């Protein structure tokens, strides 16, 4: 039966014509969707377009197509080839990868530990994970700057072991960035993993035990496959913010351990080089979409 315009439609217990229902719908979503289009969707397209435009002498944007910004990101600057930008990109991927793996290694057991408590305790533990998550990252990074400063035990230990010079702090540097990243990314990994673990079908685990599977095989065949979509989601949800991280590398890494987020910020502020900034942003956007695509795939396969 085909439906004609103007025919009554039953929706939420109420008769209305489809055009009228749709008009109401558009009216309701109009404000928010309009705002998202203007601040996010269209700018994303602009950013991608901007990364192919020429930059003038004083940072103004010229309406001239070029692939120069991508070439500059790959290191081909006006003074010949240098690996500076490529190093920053590679380092960002590496740090994000390491921080994500470490976060997952800590979050996975933690998710099981939380899921095994009584409902009341679960709520408390989840809130304990959420509180730092809801605390401003600048505040938490400030905490690491105190902990790693030259006068406290961790730095004393490193000084005694000869890892750093006497009186020096443990930041800025690679170690500090990794530590700060794991600490700030951990909740991103815990929360999706917890949802996956909470939904575990325990009948499968009991069946495996009844059939005398060793603890390892129970985990390998009855637990791990069930949590795989959750692991995928946690990986993407941790990696995506990790790759765009700005505060942690800025305060704990300094100029010698810059990541791509800092490079991006520099282009929009100090260097006033929007086209190069846009090229970097486009790269981050592409990585984000790639991450989301992988998650979708994983979740579809699991179904």
């Amino acid at each position, binding site marked *: 039966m085909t439906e004609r315009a103007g025919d009554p*439609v039953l*929706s*939420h*217990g109420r008769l209305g014509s489809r055009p009228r229902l*749709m008009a*109401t*719908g558009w009216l*309701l*979503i109009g404000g928010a969707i309009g*705002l*998202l289009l*203007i*601040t*996010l969707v*269209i*700018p*994303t397209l602009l*950013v991608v377009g901007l990364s192919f435009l020429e930059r003038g002498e004083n940072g103004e944007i010229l309406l001239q197509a070029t692939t120069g910004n991508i070439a500059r990101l790959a290191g081909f600057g006006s003074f010949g080839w240098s690996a500076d930008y490529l190093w920053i990109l590679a380092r960002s991927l590496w740090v994000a990868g390491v921080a994500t793996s470490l976060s997952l290694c*800590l*979050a*996975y*057991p933690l998710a099981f*530990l939380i899921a095994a408590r009584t409902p009341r305790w679960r*709520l408390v533990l*989840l*809130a*304990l994970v959420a*509180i*730092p998550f*809801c*605390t401003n*990252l*600048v*505040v*938490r990074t*400030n*905490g690491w*700057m*105190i*902990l790693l*400063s030259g*006068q*406290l035990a961790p730095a004393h230990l490193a000084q005694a072991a000869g890892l750093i010079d006497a009186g020096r702090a443990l930041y800025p540097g690679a170690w500090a960035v990794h530590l700060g990243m*794991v*600490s700030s990314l951990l*909740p991103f990994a*815990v929360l999706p993993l917890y949802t996956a673990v909470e939904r575990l079908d325990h009948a499968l685990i009991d069946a495996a035990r009844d059939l005398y599977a060793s603890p390892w095989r129970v985990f390998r065949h009855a637990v791990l496959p069930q949590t795989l979509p959750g692991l995928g989601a946690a990986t993407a*949800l941790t990696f*995506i913010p990790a*790759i765009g*991280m700005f*505060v942690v590398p800025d*305060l704990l890494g300094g100029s010698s351990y810059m990541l791509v*987020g800092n490079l*991006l*910020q520099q282009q929009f502020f100090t260097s006033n080089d*929007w086209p190069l900034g846009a090229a970097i942003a486009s790269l*981050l956007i592409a990585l*984000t979409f790639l991450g*989301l695509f992988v998650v979708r795939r994983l979740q579809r396969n699991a179904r």
Partner: protein
Amino acid sequence: MAVAAVIAFALLYLPLLAIAVSSFNAARYGVAWTGFTWDWYAQLLADERVREAAMNTLLLAVASTAISTVLGTLLALGIERTPWSRRGRSALDAITYLPVVSPDIILAACLVVAFGACRWLADSVGWSGAPFSRGLGMMIVGHVAFQVSFVALVVRARLAVIGSHLEEAARDLYASSWCFHRRILGPLLLPGIAAGAILAFTLSLDDFVVSFFAASPTSSTLPLVIYASLRRGLSPEMHALATVIFLGSVVLTAALAMLTRPRRDA
């Protein structure tokens, strides 16, 4: 398992503990403990710059939360209760979830480019580009842009729990639209809207990057003040400020946990 949990909670809470302890440390320079003091909190109250930033932070959080709660709730209602086609719905879903999954630095870059484009457009038709320059207005727009999605997410979850049976029953009993919204949907949806609003408020306080990209020198928020100070080195006054912000987050997170706690009646 317990080892991982201990390490995880240590990573989460040691920095916060360090700040709280340092904020009571009498030493002006350095972090070695020299004695207990309330001085840094007293200084904080007297600091003009901090007071101004606190006002900006609150103004930004309240304004953006108010706008995003209204827009987000309407968005949730519009998505859930309109017979969209399958493709229309998935397009709406994609746009709505974009801010949730994007790194904040991309949101910030998009905001800067959007306002740059608006400035350019205004200039080219001969209007003043001033409304599109950095400042509190741009920060509010930037915050609303990511808050809206989270509010919609929370309200949609609540709508899904409510379902459409009650509405069908109400209509069968000849409830008017007004009566239904006022007496049935409103009270049921209110906890969801409240949770969305608190989440939006928390997100606004939690944000640094979008504010950093959108702020003018006169519209600094508290996180921006701490950041600017940290770039010059550690300062005990800032530790006191950070501790206050942390306590605020604890209160907000607790409120959020209470409101979104799974209940038997729903």
